[in-house]
C-alpha cells in the first residue's frame, strides 16, 4: 500500500524524502488573524491567536511561499509551536487521532527532543498544509500504520531545530553563549548563573534566529519519555465528554442534514416527495447530491423525519443484478483466469506430494463507532471544513474543486475521529458537507444514519485464493503456487482503471520471511463496481488468513508441530523466527491444553512489524468461544509500550469480530446489513483474555495499529479445527 501511495504522489514524495535533514530550513513567525475565530473557539477546535513558531522542511517550502502570497484571509496558523493567548505552549501534532494513540506517541517524541515538559504540553491538530505531509506518503494522510514510522526521524529534526533556536534566543537575551545553556523540563537554563527562562518568553525572539543546519539530535540515553508508557494526551477530554469529534462541531447559524444514497451503487435518484418532506417542521431544504439526496433541517431529528417523508426512490446503478452468490461464483471462476504474474518459477517435476486448497474471505464494513459526518461553511472567499478524517490532503482537494475556491482558500480542521480503521481515508462525507453548505449558503453539518454508514462504506474487498503446493517426502514445500482473485482498493482510492492491479491485493502472499522455493504468484482483478477501500490491515486482512491457513494445513498433513514447520522454512535469525520462539514460550505451547480446548497459531509480517498469535478456543453450545489470545509483536524500537499493547489487543478484537461474525451480503446490488443487530461487533462477554508481549529491539520503528489483525483469524481457524476435526478455509468461521 505504501509503495502505491508513494507512486500516486510521486512528485511530493520525492520532495519529502529529503525531509529528514534540516538543510535550508526557513523560519517564519506568523501573527494569526482569523476571520472566523469565534466560530472555531465555539467549536472548541483551535484556540487561535498568540505566536506561532514554524519553519518548513525543504519539502514544504514551495507551498509555504504560495500560502504567504495569498490574501490576508488565509489561515496562517501553520507551524509547530504556538504560544497561545493564555501563555500556554501548544504543539501541532500532524496526525489524525482515531484511537491508535499516535497523537500521544508523536507528542512524546516532540516533547522529548525539544526538552518540553510532557505533562504540561497542550496538543493541537493542525489544519491542512503541506507542512504536515506524512513523510512516507508525501501527502497529509494518516494510515497504513505509518504515524510513528513516518515521523520518528523528521519530528526529532523539527524539535531539535526548534530547541536550538529557543536556546539561542534565550542566550541572546541574556547576552551569553548558547553553549553555556541547556534545556530542562521546559526551562532554558544558563548553567553558570543558574538563570532560567521558560520557552514561552523566548518564542517571539526565536524568530530572528537562523535555524541550525544540522541540529544535534539527543542520544537514546537522554530520552525522558520515549520508551515509557506515558499517559495518553487525549484521555482527560475523552473521559469527561469534552473531546470534540466531527459530529460534535457546532457553528453559529448551522443546519443539520442527513442523506439517502442509492442502495444500488452508482444509481440515481428517481422520484421523491419534496412537498411532504418540506411539511416537516424545521426542514429547510432538499438537496440532490451525487447518487443521493439530502434533507437539511434545524436539527438531526427533523432532517431524519423529513427524509422519511421524502421517500426517495432510485434507479439504475453499477451493481444491478449483483448478489452474494453470483459475486462468489465470479471470484471462484476468476481462479481460471491467468491474471497478472507477480512472481513466476519453474514447475518442479520431482516431488512426493501435491496439495491444493482454495480459501475465501468476504466483504466487510468498517462500522466506526462514529457514523460518517462532516461540517462545512462555504462563503465567497472561503471554504472551511471540520471533519473527522484520516485524509486532509484529499479533503482539501475535493473541497477546493467543489467550492470553486483556490487551494489556499480552503481550510480543513481535523477533529477527533470516532474510529477510522481506513474508512476515513476516503472523503465522501466532506464532499457532501461542502455541497450542502454551498446550496444552503449556511454552515451545514451532515450526519449519516447507521444504516447509511453500513450500506455506503468502502468495503474490504472479498477475495479468493488458491494454493498449489508440491512437497518432498517430509512434507516441506518444493514448489509454491498462489493465485488470488480480488478487487483493487488503490484503483478506488486513485480513480485507477478497471483493470489496475495493486500491490495490496496480494501483499503478504509471497513476501514473508519464509524461504519457500519456486514461488509463483498471480493476481486476478474482478471489478465488481462495489466501492472497496482500506480496512484495518488492508490486503493482509485476508492474505494472512490464506497463507497461514495453508501453512497450518500443510504442517498438520506432514505431522509437524505448526511452530516447527514454520521454523523449518525460516532462517533462525529472522525476526519472524524470533517472534515464534517468544510466542511459543509465552503461550506455554509445549504443555498440553485442557481436553476441550483447541489451540492454533499464526504469524504475519505486515506494516514493518512481525506479529504472532496463539488462540485458545472452546465450543460452548455449538458456538465458538475464544478464551485466550497470546500475542507477540516485534515492531522495532517502541515509543510507548502500553500504546503498542493496546493496539495489538484492539486489532485482535477487531479481527475476531470479522473472523466470527463479519460478512456483508448483497442482494440485487444492495447491501443487506443495516445496523449492529445484523452486522454485530464483538461484545465484552465474547472478548477473550489477551496477553501481549513486545520483542525487545533496537531496529527502526514498525507499525502496530494494524499488525494485530492478520494472525488472529488463521490462528482461530486452526484452534477450532482441533475441536471439530474439520479444516476451515472460509471466513467468517462457521462450525
Amino acid at each position, binding site marked *: 500500500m505504501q509503495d502505491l501511495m508513494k507512486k500516486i504522489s510521486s512528485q511530493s514524495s520525492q520532495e519529502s524524502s529529503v525531509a529528514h535533514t534540516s538543510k535550508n530550513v526557513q523560519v517564519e513567525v506568523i501573527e494569526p488573524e482569523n476571520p472566523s475565530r469565534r466560530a472555531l473557539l465555539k467549536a472548541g477546535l483551535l484556540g487561535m491567536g498568540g505566536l506561532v513558531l514554524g519553519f518548513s522542511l525543504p519539502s514544504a517550502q514551495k507551498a509555504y511561499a504560495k500560502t504567504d502570497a495569498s490574501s490576508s484571509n488565509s489561515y496562517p496558523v501553520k507551524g509547530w509551536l504556538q504560544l497561545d493567548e493564555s501563555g500556554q505552549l501548544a504543539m501541532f501534532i500532524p496526525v489524525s487521532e482515531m484511537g491508535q494513540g499516535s497523537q500521544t506517541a508523536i507528542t512524546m517524541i516532540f516533547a522529548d527532543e525539544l526538552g518540553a515538559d510532557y505533562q504540561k504540553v497542550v496538543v493541537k491538530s493542525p489544519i491542512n498544509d503541506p507542512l504536515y505531509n506524512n513523510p512516507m506518503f508525501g501527502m497529509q494522510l494518516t494510515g497504513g500504520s505509518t504515524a510513528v514510522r513516518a515521523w520518528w526521524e523528521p519530528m526529532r529534526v523539527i524539535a531539535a531545530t526548534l530547541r536550538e533556536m529557543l536556546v539561542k534566543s534565550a542566550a541572546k537575551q541574556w547576552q551569553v553563549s548558547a553553549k553555556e545553556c541547556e534545556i530542562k523540563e521546559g526551562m532554558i537554563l544558563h548553567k553558570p548563573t543558574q538563570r532560567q527562562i521558560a520557552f514561552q518568553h523566548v518564542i517571539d525572539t526565536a524568530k530572528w534566529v537562523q535555524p541550525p543546519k544540522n541540529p544535534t539530535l539527543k542520544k537514546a540515553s537522554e530520552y525522558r519519555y520515549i520508551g515509557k508508557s506515558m499517559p495518553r494526551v487525549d484521555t482527560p477530554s475523552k473521559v469527561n465528554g469534552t473531546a470534540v469529534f466531527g459530529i460534535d462541531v457546532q457553528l453559529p447559524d448551522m443546519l443539520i442534514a442527513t442523506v439517502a444514497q442509492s442502495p444500488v451503487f452508482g444509481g440515481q435518484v428517481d422520484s421523491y416527495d419534496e412537498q411532504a418532506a418540506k411539511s416537516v417542521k424545521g426542514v429547510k431544504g432538499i438537496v440532490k447530491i451525487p447518487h443521493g439526496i439530502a434533507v437539511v433541517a434545524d436539527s438531526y431529528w427533523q432532517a431524519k423525519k423529513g427524509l422519511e417523508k421524502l421517500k426517495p426512490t432510485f434507479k439504475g446503478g453499477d451493481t444491478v443484478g449483483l448478489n452474494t452468490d453470483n459475486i462468489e461464483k465470479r471470484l471462484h471462476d476468476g481462479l481460471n483466469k491467468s491474471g497478472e504474474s507477480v512472481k513466476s518459477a519453474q514447475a518442479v517435476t520431482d516431488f512426493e506430494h501435491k496439495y491444493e486448497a482454495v480459501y475465501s474471505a468476504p466483504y466487510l464494513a468498517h462500522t466506526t463507532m462514529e457514523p460518517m459526518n462532516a461540517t462545512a461553511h462555504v462563503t465567497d472567499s472561503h471554504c472551511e471544513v471540520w471533519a473527522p478524517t484520516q485524509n486532509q490532503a484529499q479533503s482539501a482537494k475535493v473541497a477546493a474543486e467543489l467550492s470553486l475556491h483556490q487551494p489556499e482558500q480552503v481550510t480543513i480542521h481535523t477533529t477527533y475521529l470516532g474510529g477510522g480503521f481506513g474508512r476515513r481515508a476516503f472523503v465522501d462525507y466532506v464532499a457532501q458537507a461542502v455541497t450542502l453548505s454551498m446550496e444552503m449558503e449556511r454552515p451545514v453539518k451532515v450526519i449519516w444514519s447507521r444504516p447509511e454508514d453500513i450500506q455506503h462504506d468502502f468495503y474490504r474487498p472479498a477475495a479468493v485464493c488458491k494454493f498449489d503446493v508440491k512437497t518432498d517426502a517430509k512434507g516441506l514445500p518444493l514448489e509454491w503456487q498462489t493465485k488470488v482473485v480480488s478487487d483493487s482498493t488503490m484503483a478506488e482510492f486513485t480513480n485507477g482503471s478497471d483493470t489496475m492491479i495493486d500491490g495490496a491485493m496480494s501483499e503478504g502472499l509471497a513476501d514473508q520471511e519464509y524461504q519457500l522455493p519456486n514461488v509463483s504468484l498471480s493476481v486476478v482483478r474482478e471489478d465488481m463496481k462495489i466501492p472497496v477501500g482500506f480496512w484495518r490491515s488492508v490486503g493482509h486482512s485476508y492474505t494472512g488468513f490464506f497463507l497461514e491457513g495453508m501453512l497450518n494445513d500443510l504442517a498438520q498433513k506432514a505431522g509437524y508441530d505448526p511452530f516447527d514447520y514454520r521454523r523449518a522454512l525460516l532462517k533462525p535469525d529472522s525476526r519472524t523466527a524470533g517472534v515464534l520462539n517468544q510466542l511459543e514460550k509465552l503461550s506455554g505451547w509445549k504443555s498440553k491444553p485442557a481436553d476441550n480446548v483447541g489451540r492454533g497459531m499464526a504469524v504475519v509480517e505486515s506494516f514493518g512489524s512481525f506479529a504472532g498469535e496463539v488462540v485458545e478456543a472452546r465450543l460452548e453450545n455449538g458456538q465458538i468461544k475464544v478464551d485466550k489470545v497470546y500475542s507477540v509483536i516485534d515492531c522495532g524500537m517502541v515509543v510507548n509500550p502500553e500504546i503498542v499493547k493496546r493496539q495489538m489487543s484492539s486489532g485482535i478484537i477487531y479481527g475476531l469480530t470479522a473472523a466470527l461474525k463479519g460478512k456483508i451480503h448483497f442482494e440485487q446490488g444492495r447491501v443487506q446489513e443495516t*445496523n449492529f443487530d445484523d452486522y454485530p461487533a464483538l461484545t465484552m462477554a465474547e472478548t477473550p483474555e489477551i496477553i501481549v508481549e513486545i520483542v525487545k529491539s533496537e531496529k527502526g520503528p514498525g507499525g502496530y495499529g494494524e499488525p494485530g489483525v492478520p494472525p488472529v483469524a488463521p490462528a482461530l481457524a486452526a484452534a477450532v479445527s482441533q475441536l471439530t476435526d474439520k479444516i476451515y478455509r472460509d471466513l467468517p468461521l462457521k462450525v
Partner: protein
Amino acid sequence: MKLSLVVNNKKYSVEADSDTPLLWVLRDHLQLNGTKFGCGEGLCGACTILLDGNPIRSCSFPISSLKDQAITTIEGVDPNHPVVQAWTKLDVPQCGYCQSGQILSAVVLLDKTSNPTDEDVQSAMKNLCRCGTYPEIKKAVELSTELKRKEA
C-alpha cells in the same frame, strides 16, 4: 412541545417535537455533546444516560416519555467519581467515542453493586466498543470498585 427538563442539576426549557429522542434534545438543543450517536436503534449504548440513576439508551427515548426524572449525562459525572478516576488512571479510551456511554453504565453498576462479579460486569456493560477497549474497561471497573471501597 414545550418541555422543561433537569439535566445535571440544571433546569432547561426547550421547544421540540414530542417524538424527538432525548439524545437529540441533549445534543442539538442543549449542546451537551458528550452523549454520542452510534446506531439510533438502542443497539450500541453510545447514547447511554441516566434517568433518576437508571441507564437508558437516549436515542430511543422520546421526550414525551419523560416524567420529570433527573437526567445525568457525562457532563454531570463528578470528575472525582471513582469510575472517572479509574478510567483516567488506566487510560481506557482509544478513539473515545463509546466512552461516555461506557462510563455511565459503569457508574450505575457501581451504585447498585458494591462487589460486582464477572457476570455482573458483563450484564451491566453491554455497550459496544469498536476499538475493543473491553479488557481495559473490565480492569477499570475493578479499580473503581476498589477506589470506591477506599473512599467509604
